[in-house]
């Protein structure tokens, strides 16, 4: 690394040696007991879905329920109501979802700059899964979701959750289904801050409007 009093190897060795001598006489620490619950919710898909809906809404996401047949009309309406002229589309988004929408589709390409993305009105993506107990959607950059930046810069994000395949009840259930080698983004409601007198204000840097579509069937 740099010249000077330090070299990378010596600090590495020094820190590890200090750790070893610090814990040399420490009592053995066993494998942790995992006596906590794997879920706090009864195993009933309808109840889990209702809980997801309730918790998403509690953190000010706008929630819609629809069917595959109604999906194009719902998305058309949501984009039109907002007056969105342009909509970002990740490469693997099912084309039929936006078949009725008037907004111009902008396809995310790796060369798109942040400024270009900033000029887009809305983005529509799928997700990896949704967690009912916490009202969380998780994105893993899969084909229907695209790069992390496309759900970050536009001010309006519509996220589609396939029900029941992509709905889990709890955080532990989510962890066992996620792949840590992928870039993961957990989203619970729109961007928010509580830094001013702990008053929650929606929308600082991320999308100020988050709409979640629960797609059944």
């Amino acid at each position, binding site marked *: 690394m740099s010249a000077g009093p330090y070299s990378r190897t010596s600090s590495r060795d020094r820190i590890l040696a200090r750790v070893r001598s610090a814990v040399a006489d420490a009592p053995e620490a*066993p494998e942790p007991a995992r006596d906590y619950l794997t879920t706090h919710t009864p195993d009933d898909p309808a109840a889990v879905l209702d809980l997801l809906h309730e918790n998403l809404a509690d953190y000010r996401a706008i929630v819609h329920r629809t069917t595959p047949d109604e999906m194009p009309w719902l998305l058309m309406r949501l984009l039109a109501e907002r007056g969105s002229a342009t909509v970002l589309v990740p490469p693997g988004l099912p084309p039929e979802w936006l078949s009725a929408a008037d907004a111009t589709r902008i396809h995310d390409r790796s060369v798109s700059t942040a400024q270009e993305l900033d000029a887009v009105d809305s983005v529509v993506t799928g997700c990896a899964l949704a967690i009912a107990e916490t009202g969380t959607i998780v994105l893993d950059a899969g084909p229907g979701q695209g790069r992390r930046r496309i759900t970050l810069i536009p001010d309006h994000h519509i996220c589609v959750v396939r029900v029941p395949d992509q709905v889990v009840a709890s955080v532990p259930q989510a962890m066992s289904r996620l792949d840590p080698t992928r870039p993961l983004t957990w989203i619970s409601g729109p961007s928010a801050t509580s830094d*001013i007198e702990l008053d929650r204000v929606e929308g600082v840097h991320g999308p100020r409007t988050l709409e979640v579509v629960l797609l059944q069937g």
Partner: protein
Amino acid sequence: MSATYLGMPSFPEAAGEALHNVTLRANLRHATHTIRDKRARAVAELADWAELREAGKQIKNRTLRHLDRYLEQLETAVTEAGGTVHWAADAEEANRIVADLVKATGEREVVKVKSMATQEIGLNEALEAEGISAYETDLAELIVQLGDDRPSHILVPAIHRNRGEIRDIFAEKMANWGRPAPDGLSDSPAELAEAARLHLREKFLRAKVGISGANFMVAETGTLVVFESEGNGRMCLTLPETLISVVGIEKVVPSWRDLEVFLQTLPRSSTAERMNPYTSMWTGTADTDGPQTFHLVLLDNGRTDALADEVGRQALRCIRCSACLNVCPVYERAGGHAYGSVYPGPIGAILSPQLRGIQSEIDASLPYASTLCGACYEVCPVAIDIPEVLVHLREKVADQGGKGHRLEKAAIKAAGWVLDHPAALAAGERAASRTRKLHPKRLPGAGAWTAARELPELPAESFRDWWKKNRT
């Protein structure tokens, strides 16, 4: 630690000043009471809170016991995923590494995610000395940075400021750093947040280098995790070409599965939410998504000293949730600045003296910045027995001697003798009651103790005498 805190007065002195600041006390009281009530409700939703707390404690204990093994495993995993790992023994070395990495990119400005570790080492000041501008992008950190102020809370660093003060800071200072605040800015939180959004967006969109800390690092997979609310973290972790993360060595956890515990306990303990709005997890670099260059700087800076203390090492379990600050009666009245460290409140009172040693006046005073009421231990999601560590550190400070502690030792020794001799105790109590009109309000020769405390009024008769008269 940070040069900002050098020459801080001892806790009682700094706290004494804060106690007279009526605005500060009102801001703090409102904030801490709001969040502690909300937290209690969020925690009550989980029937297995006690088990999650125990698991969190055990995971962290296991990590610390084999920290060498997990750090080496982490290094291998991060490297295999395309990252580069650096080791920094102290603040100076960490700052040197980061400054050199930034210079190597040819850039002169960086955007930062709120990070305790980089505050601890005074990274912003070190970068400034090298001609590099570091922009804080968390709203509260922005308020602190623009106001040329110091953070006073782990989670909400500008907790000591109310909306009127924040409005004034934005209106006066934003123009010096970039886009000015809009004309006629009011003090409504929504308008203030909007002003911050506009001010920072131009920085996010052009930034080439991002600097962060991490809440957790997973040894098994090399995954780093950042919890946040505003999206500024996502901006800094996603848009720049180069990402540099400075993380304390104690932040590692062994396995991917371990995160399921902290993903449940950290948000509920800190912001009192079921889940914070955004959590980002990244493992090295990804082909076309996020920064193409990733550096991890592993920071010791006193952590191995703390690890060597068999009672005190439990402080390294801390996940920086700040629940202990919000329940502490001393923090609520004294405010965060009085602790003279980036780590205020009960956890700061045990962490700072361990990381920095107890030689300075401020660090020797911190173990006494507590009533030992135990509320901090009750709320801690990793069950750090803060009162136990406080008492342990007090013993160390007393053993070290110095101003005030000779009298303390003599008093404790005398008290020990009296408590061992019941007849002497009874006689003493009786004598004290009979002479109570003559007692001074302040104890002569113990000004340091009584300056912030009223001596209790003695009852007309001792409890033993009362019991004898009424119950036997």
